[in-house]
Every structure is written in C-alpha cells, then in structure tokens.
C-alpha cells in the first residue's frame, strides 16, 4: 500500500483531476475510485484528500456543488472545470516526461 507521502508531489492533484473526467464525484467517491483503479495499491488519505480538493477549488480547476446521492444523502460533488481539464493535460505530459526520465535512469543503472 502506497501512502500519499510516498507519492511524487503533485500526482494526487493529477489523479483527482483524472478521476473527475469520468463525471462528478464526492470526496469518498474520489478516494474509493482511486483505490479501485490502482488495484488497491494507492490509498488516498482523507488528510490529504480534502486539503487537495480545496486547493483545486481555489485554482478553479474543479467546482463543488451540494447534491443528493443515490441513497438520498446530501454530499458535496466535485466537477472538473474546463481549466481543470487543461491543467490535467499539462500535468499528464509533465508526469509522462518525468516517468520516462526516471525509467531511463533506472534502466541504465
């Protein structure tokens, strides 16, 4: 299990943005979605999730809205904004650059 602190900086924001491309989700939904998608390898701690969401809100990369869930509970749903989608692109290319670079270093070693 990889904790957030072990992640490369900025990757949590990127993963949240990516997760939201599939549609609006609440905080718990985002956490479990990342967990599921990573085959339970990545566990997003609540301690990092909510500050990260606030950071994304502040940058206008996501929007928040109170809506009812399927079980009719009130929850805050986050939606990706256009700016957020653009940002995801930027982060993804940076991330790929980084991964390739790291990969090369590891291969040569």
């Amino acid at each position, binding site marked *: 299990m990889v904790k957030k602190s072990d992640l490369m900086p900025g990757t949590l924001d990127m993963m949240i943005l990516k997760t939201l491309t599939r549609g609006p989700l609440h905080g718990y939904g985002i956490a*479990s979605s990342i967990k599921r998608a990573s085959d339970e390898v990545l566990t997003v*701690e609540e301690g990092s999730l909510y500050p990260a969401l606030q950071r994304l809100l*502040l940058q206008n990369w996501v929007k928040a809205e109170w809506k009812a869930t399927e079980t009719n509970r009130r929850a805050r749903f986050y939606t990706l904004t256009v700016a957020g989608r653009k940002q995801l692109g930027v982060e993804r290319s940076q991330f790929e650059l980084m991964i390739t670079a790291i990969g090369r270093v590891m291969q040569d070693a």
Partner: protein
Amino acid sequence: MEMIPRFFKRFGTLLRRNRFNSELDEEMAFHREQKEKELREFGVAPEAAHRAAVREFGNTTRLKEQSYEVVGFRFETVWQDLHFAIRQLRRSPGFTLTAIVMLALGIGASVAIFAFVDTALIKPLPYKDPTTLADVAESGKAFRRSNLSYQDFADWKKMNKVFSALEAYTGTGSLIDTPSGVEPVPGARVTAGFFRVLGVTPALGRDFYDGEDKPGAADTVMITYQSWQSRFGGRPDVVGQTVKLDGTPNTIIAVLPATFQFAPRGNAEFWKTMHELNNCEKRRSCHNLFAVGRLKDGVTVAMARTEMLSIAKLLENQYPDSNRGQGATVQPLYEQIVGNIRPILLVLLGGAALLLAIACVNVSSLLLVRSESRRREIAVRGALGASPSRLTRQFITEALVLVLSGGLLGLSFAYCGMHVLLKLISKDAMAYVPYLAGVNLNARVLTFTGGICMLAAVLFAMTPVLRLSLTALRDGLNDGGRGAAGVLWRRIGANLVVVELAIAVVLLVGAGLLGKSFYKMLHVDFGFQPDHLATAQVVLPETSYAKGPQAVAVTRRILGDVAALPGVKSASFANQLPVSGNGNTDWIRIVGKPYNGEHNEVNGREVSADYFKTLQAKLIAGRFFAEDEDASKPLVIVINKVFAKQYFPGEDPVGRKIGDTSLTPTSLREIVGVVDDVKEGGLDEAVWPAEYRPLNQNNDSYLGLVVRTTQDEKLVLPALGTAIHKIDPGIGVVGEATMIGRINESQTAYLHRSAAWLVGGFAVLALLLGVVGLYGVVAYSVSQRTREIGVRMALGAQQSSVYRMILKEAGWLTGIGIGAGLICAVAVAALMRGLLFGIRSWDVPTLGLVAVVLGAASLLASYFPARRAASVNPVEALRAE
C-alpha cells in the same frame, strides 16, 4: 497577476469561515459514514466499523485546519500581518504620516465635492416624479428663456396636449407689520394647482382649491415652514389666522412642509394665488411669469417643446402685435434649477479628482521608495520560507492599513469641509441653491468613498508587488540593493513625478484662469463708480402712495432727508439697481424710422433726476433729467451708448422721439441725453441698450436707493432706514448693502469666486504635493547614487559638476512635467471655457506664470538634495559600504 483575485477569494473565505467549517464537517461526516457502511458490508460489526472509520479518518479538527490553511488564511496569520504592517508603518512615522495625510487630503477633497455634486446633481428634486416635470417659458430674441405673459400662459394651458398640468408662478413682495416696524417680505404668486403639479402637500392645512386663482376668490396664503417658525412661533393654530400683507388681511390656509424648496423662488415666504391679475398680467405684451408643467405619460421634453412652439406660432399669427418673435422653451425642471451650478460643480469635482490623483501617485512613489529599501527584508523573509503569496499579502495588508487610515481621516476632513463650505454660502445665496443644504455623508457618498479607497488600495498593493516581481527576490540578498534595480526604480519613479507635475500644472492653470476671470469680472467697466455707494431697497406701501403726486412728494422727501445725512453727498432712486440683471424690458419703435413689426427690446429703468450724478456715470451727449420733470412736462428719456450705437448709428439721437410698437401718442418720448453704458446686467452679461425714464413721470413702489457718500459707505447704511422711517414708519426698507458688497455677493460673482477659491486651494495643495514628490524622487536618487558620486569626486569631479548632474536630472523631469502639463492644461481649459470671462483658455501670462512658479519651486525642491550630493565626502561615501 492572479494573486489579487485569489487574495479576495481567500478573503471571502475568511469572512465565511463558519460556513466553510460546517460544510467541511458535513462532507467528512458523509465520508465516515460511507466508510463505515463499506466496512459493515465486509462483515465488520457495526460498533467496530464505526470505531475503525473514525480511527482511519484521523483527527478531524486537524484535518479541517489543513483544508482551511489551503483555502483561507488562518486568522492568526492575518493578525500577524496586520500587526507587522502597523509595526512597519510605525517604524517610519514620517512616511506613514505623510502618506496618510496626503491620502486624506485627496480623499477628503473629492468626497466633500462629490457630496455637493450628489446633493445638487444626483439626488432627485424633492417633488413627485421630478423627471417628468418641465420648466416652461417663452423665448425672445434677446433671451433664450424669457418670462411668460399671463395671457399667453392661459392659452398655452388650454391648447396644449402634452402636459397633464401646467401651472405658473411669479415672485412678489409684500410689506408686513412686525414688532420692529414694517418689513418687505419676499413672496410668490402661483396658479391654484402649483403645489399639486409639484406633488407637494402642505404640512398643515389645505392646498389651494381649483379656482382659488380666479377673480373674486378670497385672499388666502400659504406660508413656508421656516416663516411659520420664525414669524408665528410654530403655533399649531396658525391655520385660519389672518396676516396683513400690504395692509390687506389674508387668511393663512396652510403651512408648507419643512422640506419644501423651490429654487427659482427660493426666498419666498408667502405663497398666494394670482386671483387678482396685476396690470402686467392683463396685457398680453407684458411678461412676468414662468411655468412648471407635468409631462403626460410617454411625452418627452422634445415633444413638448415642439408642441409649445407650434402653439406659440399660432398665437403669433393671432396676436402679431404682442407675440411677434415670441417662441417657447421647454426644458427639464432640474435643468432650470441646477443648470447654472453644474459646470462649476463638475470643474470642482475634476479639480478634486486631480488632487486625489496627485496624492495617490505621490503615495505610490513613496511606497516604491520603501519597497526599494525593503528589498533586503523581503529577500530575507523569502529565504526564511515566507511564500510569495504571504509576502504579497504583507504589502496588501500595509496598503489596506494606509488606505483605511487615510480614508477615515479623509472622511472626517470631508465632513468638516462640507460644513465649512456650507457656512461660507451666505443666506441670500442659499435661497437660490436650497438643495445644497441637503449635503451630507449619505449612502451614495460613502459608496463613492469606498470606491476610491478600493482603487487606491489596489494601486498601492500593486505598486510594490509589481516592483518586487517575485523572481527578483533572490537578487535582493546578494547585491546591496542598488545597480540595475535602482535604474529601474528611477525610471518608474521619474514617470510618476512627471505625471504629478503635469497634474499640478493643470490645476494651477485652472486656478489661475478662474482667478483671473474672477478678477476681470469684478473689474469690468461698470460705467459708474461703484465705490462709496450705499444702496437699499425701499418699498412704498401702495395704500398710501398709489397716486403719482403722492409718490413724487414722498420720494423727494426721502431723497432730501437722506442727502442731508452726514457723510452723504447725494441720493437717488432707480426702480432697479445696477448690476442686478438685464430684463424688465420695453419694446420700442423709433419715430421716423422704418418699422417692420420686430421687437426692439431695450432695458427700461425709471430713475430720479440725480441718479447719474450719484452714480458718477458720464454724460456723453445732451443732458440728464431736471428735478421738475414730472407728469406735467413732456415725456423725456436718456439712452445709453449701446442704444445710440444700435438704433442711431452715425446719427445724433438727442432730440429724436421713440414710442411703443404702435407709436401711441401718449407713449411718445423725446431723447434728451446719452449716458455712458451703466452695467445693468450681471457681471458676465453684455450691456444691452437701455432707456432711462424720469421716476417723477413713471411712479414705482419698489425702488432702489443709491447714495453717494464721502466717508466709508458702510457707516451710512444703518442711518438709511432710520431716516426713511422718520418720514413714514410704514415704508419698507430692506437689503441695505454697499454697491461693492452687492457686486461681490451677486450670484455670478459668488459662483465664480467659490470656483476660483476652491480650485485655487486644490492647486496650492497640488503644487505642494508635486514639489514634495519631486523632492522625494531627487533625494532618493541622490541617496542611491552616493557611492557613484563619491567615486566621481574621488576621480576629480568638481562640486559644481555634481550639482549640475543632479539639477540636470531634476530639470529634465520638471521640464517634461511642465511641458506635458501645459498641453493638458490648454485642453482642459478649453473644456471649462464656459466658466471663463474676458480671458482665453490659452492665456499666455497665466501659462507662463504657472511654468515659472512650478519651475522655481521644483528648482528649490531639487536644490537641497543636490547640495547634499555635492557635499558628499568621497572617502566616507566609499567606506560606507
């Protein structure tokens, strides 16, 4: 610069911290519940699931804080910033005080003037639907807007389809008995629906009923609230009582509300109906009214004007004798009421805005200097881990503290300024601008204040942020805070000072032009000697002096007794004093000249025999009147030079005859003399043709007394009333004033003086601020270049060349500032051409004087730093590092 909006977003979060917290609480609770549910689905016991969820979630308070730190700033850090800002500001009290006072001056001036603009131009008139009220009048060749004849008014009222109501008003005056003798009191006569058209209902009693303005109606009167308080002690039973006006009992039917004001007849205390038409109102050719109309729904002023013009045309065809050339004017009522004060208020607002601009530029340049000297502090804080946003916030906090203090101080300046300005308006002048009394710090004025403070805050926050563009932070640590950055600063700072100087030039030129026009206005050619003249208004009660011989006898006695007073050389009467306004005109026709029915309009004045001698007006040709020229003698007149030039070009008018438009034999009179052009109209009005008739041949009961004195004319004033009341205590004497005083207090002089003084005040402040700004820039530049100067001097530069270097830099800035300012000033002056009198907007002496004054002041401001530079000790300068 995304920093700024994000700052406000954070600020918003701070203000809504409770909501932020509760939302986060709810969100986290939801998260825990979901987790609990998930665990239970895996088969964990409910109790254990709950505990696990809570445990796994961690410390919620800490979590919330973490989230909050991302979004808002914790209150403690705001407090820290504030604390630090205040400490920083207190550490340099000179800077802080200068900045706050400058800001307060700029904000105070703008807010005070805006408050007047608000009360005069923005606040709606205190009537019902004031925007659908129109001012309706006639227009003639000489006047764009002239009085309306009662007969025409009656036809206009009947024939028009654009006004739901059209009501007329005119001024009047009545003698009333007071414990201290008779007193002439200004009043107004109106048609019955006058107050209904304005939508004003009496505070006490009833309105005039329809038809109360018809012949035979009882004598009723409405009194103003102020009159009720001062003359009737505010007694509630005043309604129903009678008051004697000119000896006739009138029943008081109402007290008008305290808030009632009607600027065109601002000083009227008694409001009566026109149920008894006077001689003028019975004749279609005599004009003495104005009207107020209520536009029907969907009717614009332009439509109403078209309609009234076509009605005027009809009447012109119907009554060619009296109505030829008589058109109509319709304008919004507010235009009539505030139209004359608007340009002056706007000029003042412009002046105040420029002053504020200078103040802001000055404070920005001070901030720039400070940010420069704080580069190191900022760099150290940055190196110790302060985030760029935190550093920015520090500047914003400092700007907010400055602006807030400056704004509050400015508001109190504005409050005092408004009241001082109000106090400076004399009571007589106030009657014509009653709406100014409503000036106060209302919501609009406060919003305006908030707006300019916000702008200033953004400007001040941006200045250092822009300057210390955050990439430059690290440089601050290694260099001594000099070098390239110093050059950059000099460039920005220099631009700022050029702007300041240019604005100062504009204000100085504006003040100079206004001051010079005002001086010219007071020193126009009056056509008589205005000094050593005492004046008063004398009202003869018509009950005793209605007949000619009685009036002649009493005026002779008054003039004889007044002339016998000590210190008085001669005394005379005119039915209208000089410099009180053109108007009261007569239509004339010249015997022996072709006449095509046009209206030859001339000022008509009745004067006593010694009038011109008393005024010391020059006789150009012929003779003045003889004392015995009364109704028993042939009718004679004296005309002025303009009259002679206009109607008798190249001829000798003496001996010629003129008459009314149909040359009625009884109207024919002979010109016996030509007098110099006595200024009858306002100071800024041109001299009109005028005819003067002997008072003894044309009685009038409202007379202006003019007394030539050998001693100080002020000393004679109190004796005038006493002397006249000795003859008959029933004669009203009012408005004793010196001629010079009357000229200085006339409305035109008044408006122009206020404008000249206020803009002058702004200009002096602007000069001061501009020069301080220049001093600051030069002094700072010298302090930055101490080492350079030391090196130069060590290498053999003379003191004189150091002086030259510094003064050259200052000279460039001054030169560019003054040059740009002069260009702007000419453009701005062209905009306020309407306020200038006898002077062109590019008046060279004014422009030259301003350039010299500002140039000299700038030289002085840069001399001191230059001297400091020249006295730099090279050894110390080099060692100082």
